[in-house]
């Protein structure tokens, strides 16, 4: 019985089950979207070569002639082992995505590893020196930088750091054969751009989460006990802010995902963001579906992790009555 053991175990299991459920729902949504294809889709995609025969063949290729549940489970079973069927250009989707997925993950992970600690640090500084010059300065900068389109930042960086100063290459085409340092050098501009975008959001939200915590009476009590301000932030506010900060970081990784797509296109970085955009332009639905599922799954898993962190860091749940 779950109810007899520690309640937190029950909650974690419940969240995991919920996470699995949302993955399932998202896969249904993404898959079913194809069933909403407008009737003239085949002719639109096939263009001039659309004859009744080619249209029928196209429908068969998509499996549109089979009942929905059967198609869905076939697709899902395939997806679980990395087989997303064939693209419209008749290559296996897995071959189209292939190593590009790894490149994108590398780019996103590198950005997150640098941006998250800096964002939490700067957010804490802003909360500590709230409404002081440093906070006003950083807040104005972040407000401006969340207002900028990703490609604007990307091109400005490219113009100055690549075209004018020649520090980094303008294009970031990396290959597996390159050594680590060479790859990092080429990835610098995309990573820098992504950092600008995600850091600003994360920092603002970290600051807001901390300031929310700082308005609790127990913080005033700590002040009235004579605790120094830095100790109040670190020892009194932060332990309570872990959950909120974890969830704002997870939510803001959505900006990282959106940013990845744009940045890959700007710097011609061989990742699945670019693949997805190309597929959308060619309306290559199987590839788009596969990419959407991968992005969504990553996002859901990150949010799940954040959820679990907030549960584990909540003293009321950790130490029940």
């Amino acid at each position, binding site marked *: 019985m779950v109810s007899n053991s520690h309640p937190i175990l029950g909650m974690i299991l419940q969240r995991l089950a919920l996470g699995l459920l949302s993955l399932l729902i998202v896969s249904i949504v993404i898959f079913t979207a194809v069933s909403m294809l407008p009737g003239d889709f085949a002719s639109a995609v096939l263009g001039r070569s659309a004859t009744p025969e080619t249209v029928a063949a196209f429908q068969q290729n998509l499996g549109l002639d089979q009942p929905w549940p059967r198609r869905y489970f076939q697709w899902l079973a395939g997806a679980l082992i990395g087989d997303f069927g064939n693209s419209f250009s008749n290559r296996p989707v897995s071959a189209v995505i292939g190593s590009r997925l790894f490149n994108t993950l590398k780019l996103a992970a590198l950005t997150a590893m640098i941006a998250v600690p800096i964002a939490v640090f700067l957010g804490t500084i802003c909360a500590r020196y709230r409404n002081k010059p440093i906070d006003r300065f950083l807040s104005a900068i972040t407000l401006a930088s969340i207002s900028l389109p990703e490609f604007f930042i990307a091109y400005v960086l490219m113009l100055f750091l690549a075209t004018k100063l020649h520090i980094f290459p303008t294009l970031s085409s990396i290959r597996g054969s390159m050594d680590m340092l060479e790859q990092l050098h080429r990835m610098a501009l995309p990573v820098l751009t992504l950092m600008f975008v995600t850091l600003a959001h994360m920092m603002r939200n970290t600051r807001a989460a901390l300031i929310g915590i700082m308005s609790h009476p127990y913080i005033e009590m700590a002040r*009235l006990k004579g605790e120094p301000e830095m100790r109040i932030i670190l020892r009194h506010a932060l332990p309570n802010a872990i959950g909120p900060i974890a969830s704002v970081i997870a939510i803001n990784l959505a900006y990282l995902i959106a940013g990845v797509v744009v940045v890959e296109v700007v710097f011609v970085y061989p990742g699945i963001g670019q693949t997805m955009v190309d597929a959308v332009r060619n309306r290559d639905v199987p590839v788009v579906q596969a990419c959407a599922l991968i992005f969504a799954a990553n996002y859901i898993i990150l949010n799940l992790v954040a959820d679990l962190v907030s549960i584990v860091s909540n003293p009321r749940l950790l130490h029940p009555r």
Partner: protein
Amino acid sequence: MKSEPQSPPIVLSVTDLRIEAKANDGWIEIVKGVNLTLRRGEVLGLVGESGAGKSTIGLAALGYFRPGCRRTRGSVRFGETDVLGLTEAKRRTLRGTQVAYVAQSAAASFNPAKRLMDQIVEAAVTRGGMQRAVAEQRAVALFRSLQLPNPEIFGKRYPHQVSGGQLQRAMTAMAMICQPDLIVFDEPTTALDVTTQVEVLVSIRRAIKEHGAAVLYISHDLAIVAQMADRVMVLRYGEAVEEAPIRQIMEAPSHPYTKSLWAVRSLQTPAKPELEPLLEVEGISAAYGRFKALEDIDFSIGKRQTLAVVGESGSGKSTLGRLIAGLMPPVKGTVKLDGKSLPTLVRQRDKDMLRRIQIIYQSADTALNPRHTIRKILGRPLTFFQSLRGAAREQRVIELLKMVELDPGYAGRYPAQLSGGQRQRVAIARALAANPDLIICDEITSALDQLVQAGILQMLADLQQRLGVSYLFITHDLEIVRAIADRVIVMSQGRIVDQGSRAEVLSPPYPDYTKLLLDSVPEMAPDWLDRLLTKRSSAVN
């Protein structure tokens, strides 16, 4: 009694303290030149109603100003040091070790992420120069003297694992850990139920006596301060109106405002003859999910009568009001109006049934739509129930405003432009607009100051005379019951534990719970707590 020729040294002296708070446009003075001195071993009570500046002065004694507040003049001297002349860093070293603070809501003032012991010894260990083990020993000794259960392991708990009354005592222990020279208690028992309040008051008073520090005890309730303090300062709008030893204040107040602090106690409506019942409640039970909120409730309200429902928080008294108003369905039982049974929910009742029963809420701040003018607030029920429009409606709005003793010119204002008492009067007028037979009053005066309360209660009694309306008066305050009830119901944990006429319920013999409740209400006498303790200990022996 302090009769030594040499008076003890002065711990705190405040001279001509003026503090301003930020308002919409500019600054408003909220403390207007207050002077006070406090000697070692002395307890000074600060009494006043909301907005009198008590807490602001209490915090200023620690050299602390809430964000949005600033001092414009005056000094706070702590022993020999001029606190306000120090830098913030220097002031901080005084706090927690030499000057300590006990806040109103202990539940919110303890950090939920840390064990009680870690928070209680924090100041002592980091800045009081105490060894952790020594500090913990001292904390356990304090827990014991504050009569906390299992003092040895109490500190291992997290704040959410102990009750509100225990937390409040734990905060007192936290204040005393470094043996400060001055402790400021800011309404330490206000958030507690009356029966819990007595235990906490007793523990705090014992600890203060053992400790011997100077104490600034802040409360809105003079009866409580009378149990704790030697001397009292009465504050109003940031000014001291009177300062004197406690007995003198109670027996011969020199300022009329001081006397108004027990205005409700001096109110009493004459008993009325019993008439036939208007509303009958038969065998009602109700539940929130699996929690049983009400069980087997039976009572009736006579025409032109006031029935008071009294009980502590969680006793089910508000649920009862909502149920009669049709906002919540019962699990079983019926409610009858004039002998005919009422459908359970609002949407099943016809307009006339809805008109006859009206409800007034505790807080007029949330009961009046801030985006409607008073005219619209009062006019809507007139249109809804009586189809009044245009000039006829306007005339009735003015009549209603006069009925609740408000200026008819207020019709064009918004609720935010009225004071709390005026807003509650508008809420009463809105109920009257329907021409009801029964008004359910849910703690309608508990958010108001004594004097305003007395005014509103008197007005309700007068309106009852004129209009023949019945009241179901839900309250936790026995003084209000004494003042206006014809009949009384005492509730505890969803059940009626006692009922009868005012005279029957409020005089012996009492059932156990009624006795506990009546005993727990502080009386306006300095030795009430002592008498209660003597009575209880003799009952045990």
